[in-house]
């Protein structure tokens, strides 16, 4: 099981001060929060359960990946798409307000320390991919990013300014190559000598379910290791409700893993990738 977080880290419910809320594209917001206890322990691929309001509605917390964490300033950030009432309410929160964050939660990516890492991010799956890309040391890194259109290429400017090699694809061709991120992944993999890929290349991916399923297939065909970060509807986010089941890839009996405590990062061979949350 990929696991770069220490099980001894106990999640905290931190009353985080909102530092900045900014629209990065229509409907997409980046929220920076002062949460030093979470920032000090967070690893890429982990998430926080956000109490978007102190009122009863929306009732449950909402899970969001940690897009960046800076232990020295004690800040973390999340980047999210407004898709319903929880994310809409969150987008209305102003700088200076306090928001309860439970975290850090889940198992992050197991970050390789040598070889080549291909980080594949689709749409709003970019936050953990960006956090991983800037955290990896000692590897050749390439981010392969896909979105519907140019303005939704999240974290693109940050990747450029950090000098992290990256390829872009858009569905409408408004930036990078036109098409799906998976096509760019296949192209990139084809550049490696076949006997080299198995040993030295590893894929880390987050994005919509169909993309993850396709990436896992590509990884299998090329004999490359692959970690995927998946989503499922959650109530608690820390293992007590059994709500966030994802089916394990088992022969015979039906078995489930829990996304919040066994994941959200899984080895792509361990789980069945198909249904959307």
């Amino acid at each position, binding site marked *: 099981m990929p696991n770069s977080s220490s099980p001894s880290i*106990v*999640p905290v*419910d931190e009353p985080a001060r909102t530092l900045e809320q900014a629209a990065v594209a229509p409907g997409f917001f980046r929220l920076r929060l002062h949460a030093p206890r979470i920032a000090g322990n967070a690893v890429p691929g982990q998430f926080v359960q956000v*109490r978007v309001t102190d009122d*009863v*509605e*929306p*009732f*449950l*917390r909402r899970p969001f990946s940690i897009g960046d964490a800076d232990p020295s300033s004690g800040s973390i950030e999340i980047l999210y798409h407004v898709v319903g009432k*929880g994310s809409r309410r969150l987008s209305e929160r102003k700088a200076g307000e306090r928001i309860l964050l*439970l975290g850090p939660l889940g198992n992050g990516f197991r970050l390789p320390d040598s070889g080549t890492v291909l980080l594949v991010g689709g749409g709003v799956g970019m936050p953990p991919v960006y956090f991983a890309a800037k955290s990896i040391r000692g590897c050749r890194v390439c981010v392969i990013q896909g979105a519907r259109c140019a303005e939704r290429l999240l974290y693109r400017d940050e990747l450029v300014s950090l000098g992290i090699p990256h390829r872009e694809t858009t569905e409408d061709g408004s930036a990078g190559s036109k098409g799906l991120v998976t096509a760019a992944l296949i192209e990139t993999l084809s550049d490696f000598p076949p006997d080299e890929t198995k040993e030295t290349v590893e894929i880390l991916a987050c994005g919509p379910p169909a993309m993850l399923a396709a990436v896992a297939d590509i990884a299998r065909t090329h004999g490359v290791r692959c970690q995927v970060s998946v989503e*499922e*509807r*959650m*109530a*608690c*986010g*820390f*293992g*007590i*409700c*059994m*709500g*966030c*089941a*994802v*089916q394990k890839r088992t022969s015979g*009996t*039906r*078995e*489930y893993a829990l996304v919040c*405590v066994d994941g959200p990062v899984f080895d792509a061979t361990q789980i069945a990738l198909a*249904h959307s*949350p």
Partner: protein
Amino acid sequence: MTGTTLSPDLRTSIGALDLANPVLVASGTFAYGREMARLYDLSILGGIVSKTITELPRAGNPPPRVCETAGGMLNAIGLPNPGVDVFLREALPELRQAGCPVIVNIAGETTEGYVRLAARVAREEGVAAVELNVSCPNVSYGLDFGTAPSRVEQVVRRVKEECPFPVIAKLSPNVTDVTEIARGVEQGGGDAVSLINTIRGMAIDPRKRKPVLGNVTGGLSGPAVKPVALAMVWKTSRSVRIPVVGIGGIMTGTDVVEFLLAGASAIQIGTGNFVDPWVAPRVISELREFCIQEGIGSVRSLIGELKA
């Protein structure tokens, strides 16, 4: 008077089971305590009701298993659990370290299934009571038991023969008259009833024209069900002599007071644990605070004291 109200007496009991305070945590919303023990000292709780266990392991329902609704949530978890053998070997030893009463919740597929499970649990040290889940809306056999008073009576009577500790029957709200079922429990010799389990409900995705939950229907819980739970606790407590444990949408100390006034001897917090993992310790201190402010010496003096 001031002496007592400064440190109000929070003790209560469910029949022969004495509790340090009336705040328990509900089955299926606290797993087997392991995750929660990392967050706070569980010994402060009135008690823990563990996630339903069955004789054989169950995988549970296909996802999505949960979804939010107005003021609450729907779940169709489907009683995933490792089965009684693994539970007794791996979860119970840790659970009894909690330092508060542990109530083991069980569900059988038949009367004999309940009896066999109860007999297994009865051989264990450190179990304060069993709670019979005769009311899960998310498994095909669950509701059959809980909806027929005669069957509930029979199950309770047979389980009671196996158990040296109190037997609590957890009742479903998805019945015509919950008091009839409660009377069945009383006639079967049950020590208490707990209610409510979740209310059958459903959510639909209008664009996909599909149910949101993998199981199509699920069970509603959270603040949205509190008025239903209060009414059922009130009616039931006036219909039976055995104690009633109130469950449904409890999130605050005053919620607890309302259930006590309606006739509950103790309460369980379920869904609240998901939204605020520290809800139970907070509710206990809010209850204490309420008693101090209102000059209440003992929470027992609130039970069934509704002016109606």
